[in-house]
């Protein structure tokens, strides 16, 4: 009785897994298909793979610089968010001051703010100071919303380190800041790494801010994607190739941070 339930449950889960994964696998297959295989009305699961789509879009259509832009934007955003956000999180974890929780909530609103509402005035502002169409504008925009993730996640990680550790480090003659940099940061390293990877993912996947702030120079991969779709004669093999490059690194990263994913996605509310 119990055993048959279990078989039924595993069967259902297997079906769901197929539904969850097949679309992505199809995209992966499409990126290795020739034109005829893609346009065949009968879906072709088996075909002679071709590798033409990748060079066609990344070299001939010059999408390779977009990958570089995505990388530079994501890495710069991550480094900035961590360097600015982690110290603030440490203060939230250790210190007490009037209005602390209000300020903490205020940081949350930066992550929750609808991009469309912030991007419009940000666009006007960056136009004013001549930063639109540069990587800097996107890095700044991404940093503001990633900051809140760092502050919210790292507060929890820092709070888990007993205060006695700070105390011991200071007994050894370290200054308050010295204790933070030399002792607390290394102890929080796993959490810090997970937070950094999540920042990277969020920045890499982001579309709307980048789409509004940079049209040509400095646009990341996500912004380059819509340009490949035309009303007629979209080259789906090339589109799929871009989509694969835009998603595969993230999936690998996901496996790395799975342990901390729950915490990151719930702003530290659920430990997972």
């Amino acid at each position, binding site marked *: 009785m119990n055993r048959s339930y279990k078989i039924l449950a595993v069967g259902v889960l297997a079906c769901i897994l197929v539904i969850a994964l097949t*679309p992505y696998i*199809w995209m992966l297959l499409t990126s290795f298909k020739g034109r005829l295989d893609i346009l065949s009305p009968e879906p072709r699961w088996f075909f002679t793979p071709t590798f033409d789509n990748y060079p066609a879009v990344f070299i001939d259509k010059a999408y390779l610089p977009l990958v570089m832009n995505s990388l530079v934007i994501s890495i710069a955003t991550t480094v900035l968010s961590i360097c600015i956000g982690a110290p603030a999180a440490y203060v939230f974890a*250790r210190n007490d001051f009037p209005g602390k929780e209000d*300020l903490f909530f205020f940081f949350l609103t930066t992550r929750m703010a609808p991009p469309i509402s912030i991007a419009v005035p940000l666009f006007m502002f960056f136009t004013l100071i001549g930063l639109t169409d540069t990587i800097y504008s996107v890095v700044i925009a991404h940093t503001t919303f990633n900051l809140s993730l760092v502050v919210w996640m790292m507060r929890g990680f820092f709070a888990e380190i007993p205060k006695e550790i700070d105390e011991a480090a200071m007994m050894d003659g370290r200054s308050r800041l010295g204790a933070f940099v030399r002792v607390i940061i290394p102890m929080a390293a796993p959490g810090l790494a997970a937070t950094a990877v999540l920042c990277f993912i969020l920045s890499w996947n982001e579309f709307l801010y980048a789409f509004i702030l940079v049209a040509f120079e400095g646009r990341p991969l996500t912004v380059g*994607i819509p340009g490949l779709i035309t009303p007629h004669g979209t080259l789906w093999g090339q589109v799929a190739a871009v989509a694969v490059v835009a998603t595969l690194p*993230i999936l690998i990263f996901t496996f790395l941070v799975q342990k901390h994913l729950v915490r990151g996605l719930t702003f530290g*509310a659920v430990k*997972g």
Partner: protein
Amino acid sequence: MSSQRISRIAPRESATLHREHVPDKPLQRPRGRFLLDRGASLPLILPATILVLIFLVGPFGYMTYTAMTDLSYANPDQNGAFVGLDNFRHLVRNDPIFWHSFWLTIRFVLVAVGLEFVFGFAIAWLIWRFVERQRLLTTLFLVPMMLAPVAVGLIWRLLLQGDFGMVTHYLHKVGLLSQSSAVFSSPSLVMPTIIAIDVWQWTPFVTLIILAGLMSLPKPPFEAATMDGAGPWRQFVDILLPLLRPIIALVLLLRAIDAFKEFDKVFILTGGGPGTISELLSIYAYRVNFKNWDLGYGAAVAFMVYLVVLIMCSVFYKAVYWKSAGAAGR
């Protein structure tokens, strides 16, 4: 609002410094020895605060101001004269497309998040009850949610192509789709399709977090209930659901806030079409601002989007404040 809060800190800051110079004056509040002193904590917390003030509160203030002007890049006569609340008045009273988008977005949020919750909860429960090696399986389930939303839009556009889409083909074969036509140009199919894609993408999110909640449930209440002869259904309703309530609230709110802001996928899939049938609020705000270049009115629309999200956000904060939810999650 926040600048007030920060300025509230500043005067006390000087008071602390003052206290240090007068050691015989008793401390008003006993403070733990290992709290950072103000002098050391300010440089740590200020950069983050200032950055957010400049690049978030600044734009927000500017948007609020722009919303009260007639600024438009498309019409040279409208060069940003102050018009008070005219934009909002027009928005609320005479803009059927705004209200169409608004209710469309509300319906989208309710249906999509509702379905995601039901499916996500069921899957999490199945994994929790019947699967031993949960981590590997959960990771595989997560794939749709980790993809860039733009890529999700692309994938489904490819799958649902009229003449050669893989999913279209099989749906037609099973008889669920009358003819192999383009789903996204059909007024009656486009929103259900977008909702289905959103459910495909975000159900794993619900699963992941509910599963984390299930795995952290304490054992004793269930053991006691079994001893008292309570069946599985009673245990589910009377023990499991109440224990999970903070996490359920958290998941629903986070998803609702995100769904309300939905832009990327729909932009790639339909661009709001056909006509305005799938024009969610974000897409409408985008169109007013960057297609019509009607920036004053667009700012008013963006302001309304922000307002709704802010309300949901403060509900989130009140309902599942991170400490209490953390205690439940442990």
